Structure formats: structure tokens, C-alpha cells
């Protein structure tokens, strides 16, 4: 059992790249904590710093209040599951599981007992004498998990453990990892780039981007109250729509809309004349009725039919003369590549509507679900939603 504290951790590699910049976090005892971010954001480096495979350039790692910066990985009593599984290929499954116990100098009887228990939990019982090369991907994944749990470590560190599995197996293992955490109640730090994995598994998430911490919170907090454009665009699928706009006397002007939107009492805090980016999740758009205000007139560009839902990609009829300034956005490179002046978006609709490319649609904007961001800093300035 361990509470892991990171204090002002920075990591600069020899070639000068700064992988992690000034990160402070507290991971509570027994918590399922997720480090989430796109590839290259420093999340794996951070994990390696926690387990001791890398040393932080500056900053402290504390476990239960004790600074462990200079402690060798073998003395940290943490177990790690690698993306590649890193199963020892020259040992049987049983020997793989027993390896950490042997190193700890445990006697054979106790070792066998622990291995058997771990094998039972992970349903590896009849594979203990097999060599890793004869195992399937999912079985190898279990062996890697098993090797972690036999030690009864203070904390589990998992580095994208599911990314090498196919979709179905990934869903199944995701459930098993959640169960495992439920059973063991041990601190787990889980690195992933997959926001679905992150929000389904994690009790709390830390979102990282280019080595910097963006936001820490529960999945619900990150979804409902993203601190900046990056988090808003990264959490949630399909990702949030962004429209350029301007605040004028407490009212929001969007070029894509004909009407302006009243931001209510709190909206007066915003500077008049401020350029903003307005974020709206695809599930907060709906087909408009005749008497609705704030109606988006769009043309269907693509329909993704998924059975239970349909994701309709659209281009806006109005607005888009100016290039939208979405510099701080998660996928801004992608957006730039499209290059078009048209403003695009996605709406989640009932699949019973038979829509096809080129159809005109009127979409109602849920004005109580708006997130308003500063286009320069990306910071969230205002949100009309009251949900926490």
C-alpha cells in the first residue's frame, strides 16, 4: 500500500529534449490513477521515474512521505507491466511468475503457494509449465499481470498494457484489470493514450501534453469541466466541436449561427470584444424544431452509422470566412491539413434518421452546455453548463 507523491518532477534527456516539465501529483493509496496523453507526452517517462528506471533531472518522488529518488528499482517494491509484456522467454510461465519471488529469496513452499494463487486469479493454472512462445497475446498479457501480482507490491505500474491486444480482448482485459484492482485494492498507475480506457478504468486521471500536466481529476470532472482546449478535445468521443466566436456585451456571437447567445449573468465577466473558441460536445447538438433559437445550419459531409448511434460529420453553411484560430487544440495539425475555410463538426444523432451526404440539416445548439476558451492560452474562460 502506498501513496505516491511527485513534486516538481522534470526530466531532460541528454540530447536536450524535455520529456517532463515540472509535474506535481499525488496518487492516493489504493487509487486507480491514469496518466493519459498522446504519444510523446512524457507519460511513460513519468512512469519510469516512479518505478526508478529513469531518474528525474529535478524534483522528488515520495512514497508514503519518504523520498525515494535514489532508491534502486529493486528496492521500491513496485511491480510493472510493460507494453511489450517483457516475459522472460527462456523460462516457463511458472518460472516467470516465481522469478521476482526467487530474487526476493523466498523459500520454495511459499513461492509455490503464491504462484498458484496468482495463477488462479488470472486463470493461468494449466499453463504454468508452458513456454511463453506457445502462448497467445492475451495469455502473455495475463502472465505479465501475474508476475506483477505475485509479489504483492506496494503499487502496480502499467504501461499501456492493452495496446497490443485486439479490440475484443482489450475490452475483456480492461474488465479484468478493473476487477483485479477491486480485489487487491492496491495503488495502480496506468499509462494509456486511449481515452476510452482511461475514463472507464480510472478513478482519477492526469492529462499530459508535451511533458506538461494539463488537468487532474475524475473522468466526470474532465468531461464536464475541461480546464483547457486540449483536455476538452482529448476527452470524449467523438471529440468536442470547436467554433470561433466573439463575446460582445455578455452575448456570444458565433459566425456559424444567425442568432447571438445570451451568456446569462456570469457572462458579463467576460471582456467585451474578446475573441473566443466555443466548444460543444457532439451529444449536445440535436435536430432543431421550428421554434428553436440558436440553430446551426449545416450540410452533411459523412455519416458514420454505428447501430446504436450515428455520428454525422457536417460542414457549416455560415461563417468560416476567417481561419478559425484553434492553436491550442489537440488535433490542430490535422485541422490545419484540411485547410478548408469551412467550419466542420460532428453531431451524434439517432440512427433512425436516414441521412446522406449533401443533406441540409438544422441543428439546435444546447446553449447551457457551452465551453468558452481563450484561443491564445487555451484556458477555459467560461462554461454555461452547471454540471460538475
Amino acid at each position: 500500500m502506498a501513496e505516491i507523491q511527485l513534486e516538481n518532477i522534470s526530466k531532460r534527456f541528454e540530447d536536450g529534449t524535455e520529456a517532463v516539465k515540472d509535474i506535481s501529483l499525488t496518487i492516493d493509496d489504493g487509487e486507480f490513477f491514469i496518466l493519459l496523453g498522446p504519444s510523446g507526452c512524457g507519460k511513460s517517462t513519468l512512469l519510469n521515474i516512479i518505478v526508478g528506471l529513469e531518474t528525474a533531472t529535478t524534483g522528488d518522488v515520495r512514497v508514503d512521505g519518504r523520498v525515494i529518488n535514489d532508491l534502486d528499482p529493486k528496492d521500491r517494491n513496485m511491480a510493472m507491466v510493460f507494453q511489450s509484456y517483457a516475459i522472460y522467454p527462456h523460462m516457463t510461465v511458472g518460472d516467470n511468475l516465481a522469478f521476482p519471488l526467487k530474487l526476493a529469496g523466498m523459500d520454495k513452499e511459499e513461492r509455490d503457494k503464491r504462484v498458484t494463487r496468482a495463477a488462479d486469479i488470472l486463470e493461468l493454472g494449466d499453463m504454468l509449465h508452458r513456454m511463453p512462445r506457445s502462448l497467445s497475446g492475451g495469455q502473455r498479457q495475463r502472465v505479465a499481470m501475474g508476475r506483477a501480482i505475485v509479489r504483492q507490491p506496494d503499487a502496480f505500474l502499467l504501461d499501456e498494457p492493452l495496446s497490443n491486444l485486439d479490440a475484443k480482448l482489450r475490452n475483456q482485459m480492461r474488465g479484468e484489470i478493473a476487477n483485479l484492482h477491486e480485489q487487491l485494492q492496491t495503488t495502480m498507475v496506468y499509462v494509456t493514450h486511449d481515452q476510452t480506457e482511461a475514463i472507464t478504468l480510472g478513478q482519477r486521471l492526469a492529462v499530459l501534453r508535451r511533458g506538461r500536466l494539463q488537468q487532474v481529476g475524475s473522468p466526470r470532472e474532465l468531461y464536464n469541466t475541461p480546464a483547457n482546449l486540449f483536455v476538452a478535445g482529448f476527452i470524449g468521443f467523438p471529440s468536442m466541436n470547436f467554433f470561433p466566436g466573439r463575446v460582445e456585451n455578455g452575448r456570444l456571437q458565433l459566425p456559424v449561427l444567425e442568432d447571438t447567445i445570451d451568456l446569462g449573468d456570469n457572462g458579463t465577466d467576460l471582456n467585451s470584444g474578446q475573441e473566443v473558441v466555443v466548444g460543444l460536445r457532439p451529444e449536445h447538438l440535436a435536430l432543431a424544431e421550428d421554434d428553436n433559437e440558436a440553430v446551426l445550419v449545416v450540410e452533411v459531409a459523412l455519416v458514420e452509422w454505428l447501430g446504436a448511434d450515428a455520428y454525422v460529420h457536417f460542414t457549416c453553411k455560415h461563417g468560416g470566412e476567417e481561419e478559425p484560430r484553434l492553436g491550442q487544440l489537440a488535433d490542430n495539425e490535422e485541422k490545419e491539413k484540411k485547410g478548408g475555410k469551412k467550419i466542420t463538426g460532428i453531431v451524434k444523432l439517432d440512427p433512425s434518421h436516414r441521412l446522406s451526404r449533401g443533406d441540409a440539416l438544422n441543428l439546435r445548439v444546447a446553449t447551457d452546455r457551452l465551453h468558452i476558451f481563450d484561443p491564445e492560452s487555451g484556458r477555459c474562460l467560461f462554461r454555461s453548463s452547471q454540471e460538475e
Partner: protein
Amino acid sequence: MKPQLPRTDHLWWSAGSLLAVCYALTPIAWIVSLSLKHPGDLGDNRFWPQRITFEHYRAIFADAQFPAALMNSLGIALISTLLAVTIAMFAAYAVVRINFSGRRLFLALALAIAMFPPVSIIGPLFNMWRLVGLYDTWPGLILPYITLTLPLAIWTLAAFFREIPWDLDKAARVDGATAFQAFTKVIIPLVAPGVFSAAILVFIFAWNDFLFALSLTSTNDARTVPAAIAFFTGSSRFEQPTGSIAAAAVVVTIPLVIVVLIFQRRIVAGLTAGAVKG
């Protein structure tokens, strides 16, 4: 799965292989035949011996020179192999895993040493060894053998180390191993095929070497078999020691064949299969 070859292809492959084997083995068969011939038949130009005798084998072992040379050869080659492979293992691991400056230079220099013609250092070495007292001793031969085979061993092992996923030693470290334990318990078993390959190369070099053995030894104290054979004499001064040389050649070939046969079974690729995804 072996690919199914059409019958004619199969025939050609067999014929080709047979030809290659004959080409390689005929001289050896000739030497074996010579070693078994009666002294009177040595010049009869026949491939098969008419009368088989083990006289030559008895003769070489009766003389004090050959058994001593055999012991020298065995000892020097084994010690050289052990030391060279051990040093090469650490060096290759460092070259592959540790990012130190001058890494490329180190490998390039190692290669340069391997390219060095031994003949050019024999003279200076002879003088130096006499000066420091290494002349005609085991270390006097072991040292040059290690030096000249290390580059090859390092390059061979480095190639094998590169194939080992980094995650395995990281995993071992997290599982509670010291850096040395991770090396000996996880990495070395996985590069075993590479270690055996390197060992065979070093052993063959040391076992077959004639140049150093001839120049840096003078008595039975350190003279190895290839050099000792050159000093064989016939039973009378009118007789060529052909039969003894042939018998000695057969005797020194046998350990080599045994070593290669044993280690060949260990040199199997694909030992790392199953370490990571795939």
C-alpha cells in the same frame, strides 16, 4: 514448415550438397587414410590403406612431446576462450546498452585490431615476451589469442545483444534484480547462442594457430599441437614422419569436431521468440 520442393529441385540440391561435402571432406579422409597406413605403404598413392595399423597413433603418444603439446593446446585454447568470451560479453553489453561517448570509435577500433596482420606484430612480441618473461609460457600465448579474437567476439555478441528487447532487463530490475542479476539471469541465457558462437570462433582460432605458437614457444612447456607437429621427426633420419603427422592431425581435429557438434545444437535462432508481442 519446410517448403515443398519439386522433385528435380530436390535432386539438384542433394547433388550440390553431396559435391560440397565431398570437396570439403576428401583431404580429411586422405589424412585419416594416411594415419592408418602401414609405414611401408605410405607412398603407394592409394586412397584406401591396404593394411590398417595404429602404429602411428601409438608412436605419437609414446613420445613425450605430443601429449604435452595436446595438454598445452587444450589448456591454452580453453582459457583463451573463457577469458575472451567473458570480456567480450561485458564489452558487447556495454556497447549496446550504455550510451557512452566514443562508442562507435570503440567498435571501429575493435574492428581495426581484427584486421591487423598478426605477422607484423610477431617480431616485436617475441622481443617483448623475452624481456618480460612471457616467452614460452601459457600466458604468452593466451594474451595474443585473447587480443586478436576479442574484436570478433565483441561484434558477434553485440549483434546478439541488439536482438534482446530492452524491456526484459528493465522488467528484471523492477522484479527485484540487481543490474548484475538482470545480466546473468535474464540477458545471458537469452544470448546463449551468441555466446556459443563466439566461443567456437575463439576456440578454433586458438586451437588452429600456428604462427604465434611457433614463434613464441621453444619447449614442451607451452608449445601447442600445430607447432609441435612441425617438430616431428621420423623414427630414423631417412624416414619422413608422414604417418605421425597424419595421426597427430587426426587427433587434434577430433576435439574440434566434438566442440562444434556440441555447440551447434545450442546455436539455434529463435530462442527469444515469445519475449514480446508477436
